[in-house]
């Protein structure tokens, strides 16, 4: 399993713990991530919000780089995931789009290779049975809700390795790690991440609703696969008066359950510390 790895901007900065846990977990599971040399920002979401051609070109430059080496792309950020997949689809569906893209990036591109999200790769290629075998510290009695957000599942004709309304992959993955996964209605609610810097009050209201739904479902923490949701859920919960629910990346919990080195250092980067929760479960 070898992929051209596209980290995306957040995984090197605001979501560094996601980036590090992705690399550690993939190495442990035998997924070879070959970082795409000289990758650039995919433009999400300001690119497509202002200029469709620019959005295609910013994503397309990276698609073309991966095509040079003949590898499918693996991504961890759902926003990058959607941009890369949308662009490939728009180019495949319409030859005029392709010509325009090739002109803008000044590189050949034939839309040959796929882009996959790591949650998809881990659940469907590695498989949950394989995952279970490697669990050394099951996340017993840890009550979690999986929070998928928008772009892992929507729009389904572009992304869609899971059900757009009631996705299951992360739920099953967390159950395989031994956690107690709660069903809830906030799985695919939007956290308003794209407005997190420009309309804080809007993002704040959405985050308050989502975290309240999670609490009502009996969750002690939320789990995400998105760096933008993670930042937004951590930062905007901090504004509220309620007890704050820790937010984990799914890869951090895989690392924790498999006893990987470094798990503690990832979690130290969180703005809402999960350590007392974990200590109460002997983790």
């Amino acid at each position: 399993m070898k992929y051209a790895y596209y980290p995306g901007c957040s995984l090197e900065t605001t979501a560094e713990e996601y980036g590090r846990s992705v690399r550690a977990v993939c190495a442990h599971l035998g997924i070879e991530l070959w970082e795409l040399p000289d990758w650039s920002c995919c433009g999400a979401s300001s690119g497509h919000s202002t200029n469709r051609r620019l959005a295609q070109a910013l994503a397309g430059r990276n698609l073309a780089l991966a095509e040079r080496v003949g590898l499918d792309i693996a991504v961890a950020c759902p926003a990058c995931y959607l941009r890369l997949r949308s662009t490939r689809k728009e180019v495949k569906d319409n030859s005029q789009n392709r010509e325009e893209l090739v002109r803008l990036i000044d590189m050949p591109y034939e839309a040959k290779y796929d882009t996959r999200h790591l949650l998809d790769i881990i659940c469907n290629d590695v498989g949950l049975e394989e995952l279970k075998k490697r669990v050394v510290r099951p996340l017993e009695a840890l009550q979690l809700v999986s929070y998928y957000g928008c772009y892992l599942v929507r729009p389904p004709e572009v992304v869609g390795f899971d059900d757009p309304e009631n996705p299951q992959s992360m739920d099953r993955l967390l159950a395989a790690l031994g956690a107690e996964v709660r069903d809830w209605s906030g799985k695919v609610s939007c956290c308003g991440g794209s407005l997190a810097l420009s309309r804080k009050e809007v993002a704040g209201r959405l985050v308050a609703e989502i975290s309240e739904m999670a609490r009502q479902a009996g969750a002690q923490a939320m789990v995400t696969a998105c760096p933008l949701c993670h930042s937004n859920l951590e930062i905007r919960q901090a504004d509220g008066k309620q007890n704050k629910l820790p937010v984990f990346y799914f890869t951090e919990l895989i690392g924790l359950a498999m006893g990987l080195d470094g798990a503690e250092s990832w979690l130290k980067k969180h703005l809402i510390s999960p350590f007392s929760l974990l200590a109460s479960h002997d983790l």
Partner: protein
Amino acid sequence: MQYVAKSVPAIGDTDFSSEVKEASGTNIDRCYQCLTCSLDCPVAFAMDYLPHQVVRLVQVGLKQEALTSATIWVCANCEACATRCPNDVAIPRVMDTLRAMALRERVVEKGKDIVVFHHTFLENIRRWGRQYELSLLLQIKLRTRDFFSDLRLGLRMLRQGKLKLRPPRLKDVAGVRAIFRRIDQSLAEGERT
């Protein structure tokens, strides 16, 4: 809930309707105003027109109303409406198109703060090739003259290494800048014609 008329004659600019359909690649004529989009929209509370009303504005050709609405900027592009629309109307593509048109016509009053964000975000990519978060945050603070909100948070993120002091480094940043230049050229040519 108010009765929603199912048929409304074009009362405005029909060229505008055609242009939005063409540019968004979305056939909004299929919309029968079922309101699914507006009921599912997580940010409807912050909008002036609801999503189904924006679709109707476009259908009947009310260009000014559509382009100057707060809605097109508040839309978070969460894709819930597009996923649930029984007629496959890709409303987020319509919103993308209306935003691009509003920028072109310079009527962005109700989305000024959001436009500042988008422009700053893209200028950073143009300069560095990747996003440089610290610079993005500081520039937005300067441009919106909002110096004090989230200051402690920012300092904490710096301390925890979530914001990097050093900008990202890309070898072929010239390649990224060339993309932006070609887009600028296309836009300038579009404005001339």
